């Protein structure tokens, strides 16, 4: 209402401008944004940036095993004489891609289930939510391990394994939001003028719950990357020689404490990536979620 009288501006533009302003007020969120952008760039261009691209394909150099960090090898070399810096750069793509796929898949399944449960209510809700409860009670990592172990290694299998334990979170969120919005007066108004369920759900409810879902997705990206790395660490993940942060760290564990660099740098890479997404997601939540905003 405050915009009234001043230069006419569409409400969306105004809301966006306001959100951008709020976002840019927070230094931490900007750091997160920068980290995420860098990460995405590395994921796209990583292999071509690597000083020793041949190591990404599995080439070894036994003459240069366990070199400590130096100018030639900023992160040192590993037990096969491979450049750790190149491997870390190359591992970005797997982590980011897999994380993205997990979140997308989880959101898709979760939103469909949650929307149906929240809107239909009654028995449908009861059954769908009990199924999602079941998924919550089964420890996600063990479930993912079991599925991944049975399906065999590979990115796709890993993504499926993680997404299977991922969707209930979205289902609960969407269900709760749908149920809250269902009680809103404007939904009652739509029902009063004769709108059918499809129209109410897609035109009136879902557009109004988009923001919390997007915020959760951005927060979950970091967590998904973490889970991917965890599976890699346990030894269920991508097939070697594809470099992956978790498995790099797992191999390096055996060479502690003398060759610490082989473990520290992949670990830091995981941390930085996850941290970036969390900073970004937290900033987005501050901007979009009026409850957490204050």
């Amino acid at each position, binding site marked *: 209402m*405050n*915009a*009234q*009288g*001043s230069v006419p501006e569409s409400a969306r533009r105004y809301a966006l401008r*306001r959100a951008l*302003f*709020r976002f840019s007020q927070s230094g931490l969120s900007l750091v997160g944004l920068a980290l995420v952008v860098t990460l995405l760039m590395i994921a796209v261009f990583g292999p071509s940036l690597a000083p020793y691209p041949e190591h990404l394909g599995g080439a070894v150099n036994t003459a240069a095993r366990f070199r400590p960090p130096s100018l030639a090898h900023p992160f040192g070399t590993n037990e096969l004489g491979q450049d750790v810096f190149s491997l870390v750069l190359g591992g970005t793509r797997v982590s980011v891609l897999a994380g993205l796929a997990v979140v997308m898949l989880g959101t898709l399944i979760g939103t469909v289930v949650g929307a149906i449960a929240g809107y239909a209510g009654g028995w449908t809700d009861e059954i769908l939510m009990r199924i999602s409860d079941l998924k919550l009670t089964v420890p996600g990592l063990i479930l993912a391990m079991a599925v991944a172990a049975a399906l065999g290694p590979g990115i796709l299998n890993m993504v499926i394994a993680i997404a299977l334990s991922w969707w209930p979170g979205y289902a609960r969120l969407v269900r709760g939001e749908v149920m809250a919005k269902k009680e809103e007066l404007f939904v009652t108004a739509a029902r009063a003028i004769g709108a059918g369920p499809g129209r109410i759900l897609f035109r009136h409810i879902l557009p109004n719950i988009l923001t919390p879902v997007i915020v959760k997705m951005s927060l979950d990206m970091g967590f998904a990357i973490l889970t991917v790395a965890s599976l890699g660490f346990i030894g269920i993940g991508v097939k070697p020689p594809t470099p992956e942060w978790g498995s790099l760290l797992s191999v390096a564990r055996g060479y502690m404490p003398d060759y610490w660099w082989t473990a520290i740098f992949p670990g830091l890479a995981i941390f930085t990536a996850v941290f970036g997404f969390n900073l970004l997601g937290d900033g987005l939540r501050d901007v979009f979620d009026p409850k957490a905003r204050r």
Partner: protein
Amino acid sequence: MASQTVPPLLDIRDLHLTMKSFDGEAHVLNGIDLTVNRGEIWGLVGETGCGKSLTGLSISRLVSTPPARYARGEIRFEGEDVLKLSESAMQRLRGRHIGMIFQDPTTNLNPSFRIGEQLVDVALAAGRHSPEILGLEARASSSARRMAARALAETMLDKVGIPNAAQRLDDYPHQFSGGMRQRVLIAMALIGRPALLVADEPTTALDVSVQAQVLRLLTGMVQEYAMGVLLITHNLGVVAETCSHVAVMYAGNIVERGPVASVLAAPAHPYTTALLAAIPTRGVKRGDLKGLAGTVPNLIQPPPGCRFAPRCALAGPDCRADVPPMIELGAGHGAACLRVASQTEAA
């Protein structure tokens, strides 16, 4: 002789308050002048966003700064400017000297605590610097204080008309009806025996039948304790039936003030007149109400001069030049309108 020098209970002078937001700094209070004495019940009326609630909150300094900023002016309580007090001195005033009641009785009591506990804590806070409230010596033990506070809580609950006060102290807020909760809140506001009560829309959330009872209770208590009251409301009917004086606010200004009978019977400011003409009172024929055209001004870039001028039928270029001063019409009745001035000069 001493009565000459006793300062008024509440004396707000030229209070300016701005509020920062993403869109800019809004001038929400634009030079408020208001004096409340003991025994007076002032109605502060106005429409949404006129600044009446912020005025009330400012008296107990409960507006967070930032985003708010007191640009100018003072709020003197018994002669002392509360805007200059330290936070701990302010805390001593709250509850003990200035009581407050807010609109919604369902949200103003803490749902997780028994009402007795909440009353006792308020009484203890008030009794910390004035043990006489609890009827105790300054050096009384803390258990003695607690017992006295509980006894006082029971008395107050009884006074506001809650049956079985002793037992109900142990009930939780949700076990009371809306009207009863507002009574509990009145007891809480008055347990420290404040000299000034600020009541912000105390009956708006209540049903009409309950509203009348609560207002009667409130006026009775005020007379018994000889308090001064600032009753903030949007309802002129409530003002007419409860208050001795009224101040009408529009867009951050008090545009008219004076004794209720005089202001409501002979409104001088065009805004007051318009407000009264918009109320569906007895005898108004279907279709005869007068709405007020236009909208409330944008307070970030308020119109120059009289803020009501853009919506005023009588306004001329002179109205848009300067903020009109308060023109005294006798017996404490005043209106901030240049047209009133020309009328009185002509007369």
